[in-house]
């Protein structure tokens, strides 16, 4: 590298360009592809290479987006309502599952004999596809809010329960030994060692469970209601409005992204001591 003292303005400019080229952030590449794809899509529809009804072009989607925010869909149901309905259902089912599963999981995990006795039940209950329970839940509780919240809670419950059990069992024995040698009682060890030691894994389970809640809610909103984002995209199909379905999917992506980020943020606030907050994929 030449020293900066003899650099002419032109060479300094080139150097700066080089440096900026090296620091193009990764998301810029991604954004570039997205823009190119959107443009290609628009172009292809313009030239009638692909069907505008099946693949409504980005410009049309943008107008629909605006219209949805202003007037909502179907008539009389605002986008606001859809968002609130979906969020509220997720929140109810998810928090019920967490509130039940975390204490239970901690207890089961700390009681080895009990853990062995219930392990097959948990394994099987986890394997039961949550959505296969939909007809049964409908037969039991009817097509209503309770059924939807119940299914979300069911799906999340077993994931959180398993993670809480594994979390307790995964707390390193050396922490227990250290606490014992410092004279802590069994109760103190549970509250001050087992509990904080298992929080990171419990949070990992909560992240996976959020993905599950999201999967279930979209499916259960497709029947028996016109409120909620799942209902929005299904209703749009009944009216042959592919554009509305697609915008609805964008809404879903946004809400999913925001929820996942909120949870990650919460984790960083609550567990500042955790070394690597690795992203667990759904």
């Amino acid at each position, binding site marked *: 590298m030449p020293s900066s003292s003899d650099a002419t303005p032109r060479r300094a400019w080139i150097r700066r360009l080089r440096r900026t080229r090296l620091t193009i952030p990764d998301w810029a590449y991604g954004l570039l592809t997205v823009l190119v794809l959107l443009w290609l899509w628009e172009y292809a529809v313009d030239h009638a290479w692909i069907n505008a009804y099946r693949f409504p072009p980005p410009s049309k989607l943008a107008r629909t987006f605006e219209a949805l925010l202003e007037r909502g869909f179907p008539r009389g149901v605002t986008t606001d309502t859809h968002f609130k309905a979906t969020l509220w259902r997720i929140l109810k089912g998810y928090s019920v599952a967490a509130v039940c599963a975390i204490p239970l999981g901690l207890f089961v995990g700390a009681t080895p004999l009990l853990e062995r*006795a219930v392990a097959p039940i948990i394994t099987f209950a986890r*394997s039961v596809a949550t959505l296969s329970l939909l007809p049964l839940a409908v*037969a039991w509780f009817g097509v209503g809010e309770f059924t939807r919240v119940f299914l979300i809670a069911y799906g999340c419950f077993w994931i959180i329960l398993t993670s809480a059990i594994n979390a307790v069992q995964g707390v390193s024995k050396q922490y227990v030994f250290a606490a014992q040698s410092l004279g802590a009682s069994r109760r103190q060890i549970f509250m001050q060692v087992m509990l904080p030691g298992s929080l990171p894994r419990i949070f990992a389970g909560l992240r996976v469970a959020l993905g599950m809640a999201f999967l279930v809610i979209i499916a259960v909103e497709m029947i028996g209601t016109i409120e909620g984002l799942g209902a929005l995209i299904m209703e749009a199909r009944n009216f042959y409005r592919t554009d509305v379905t697609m915008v609805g999917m964008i809404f*879903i*992506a946004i809400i999913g992204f925001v929820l996942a980020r909120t949870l990650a943020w919460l984790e960083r606030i609550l567990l500042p001591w955790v070394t690597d907050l690795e992203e667990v*994929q*759904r």
Partner: protein
Amino acid sequence: MKQQRAFQRNLLVSWSGVIVVLVLWQLANTLRLVNPSVFPGPLQILDTALNRFPAADVLDHARISVQRVLFGFLIGGGLGMVTGILAGWYRLFGKLIWGPIEILRPVPPLAWIPIALMWFGLGEQSKVFIISLGAFFPVVTNTYKGMISVDPMLFRAAQSIGLRGPRLLAKIAVPAALPDIAVGIRVGWSLSFGSLVAAEVLAANRGLGYMIMYGREVGEVEVIVYGILLIGLLNLITDYLIFNLLFRRQLRWYFG
């Protein structure tokens, strides 16, 4: 002798939970604490399983379901693996395609159902599409993550003994990323399976999901429960086969 007795005792403990649940469930029915036509007991379901459906029919439904999920999974998972490996090997390609993937990833596979119906109609294609989406995203993200986190020392070691190009990819990068790929495949499989059930429950005329819906239409709860148990069992068995037999053996060096 001593060990055998310990093993038997372990077995008893492991199954005691299941036995207790089954007995309580049956007692609640026998004592009419719950309405048996709404909450059928284990014996009633066993009776349905043995007498209500011929085994051949049930096997046929199961076969259809397995075929669907396998087909969709192979397409989605295969595409995901190839995309992930290429994206991890050719970094520029990876950066370029990661935008669209990251945008589409938060959309759960079931949210594609209305679009799939519009694109492919009510038939087999749309189900396979949904199922393959379930497999694609977990596999592609985990494969990519595995590929880009391979220890650079491995590459240096391999290059110093003369490996380069495609052989470096095939002999070093992919094997080193395999544990992550395995995680992706396992998650992808369970998501494919969940999507299959949803797709069959919402629209199908064969398969285990359809069997459940049939039970609901004729109002026989024990048929629904039977179907649910079958699906759960199938999920359990396939997951066991994939994970324990395939990966445990292939990835002994990793799982120990």
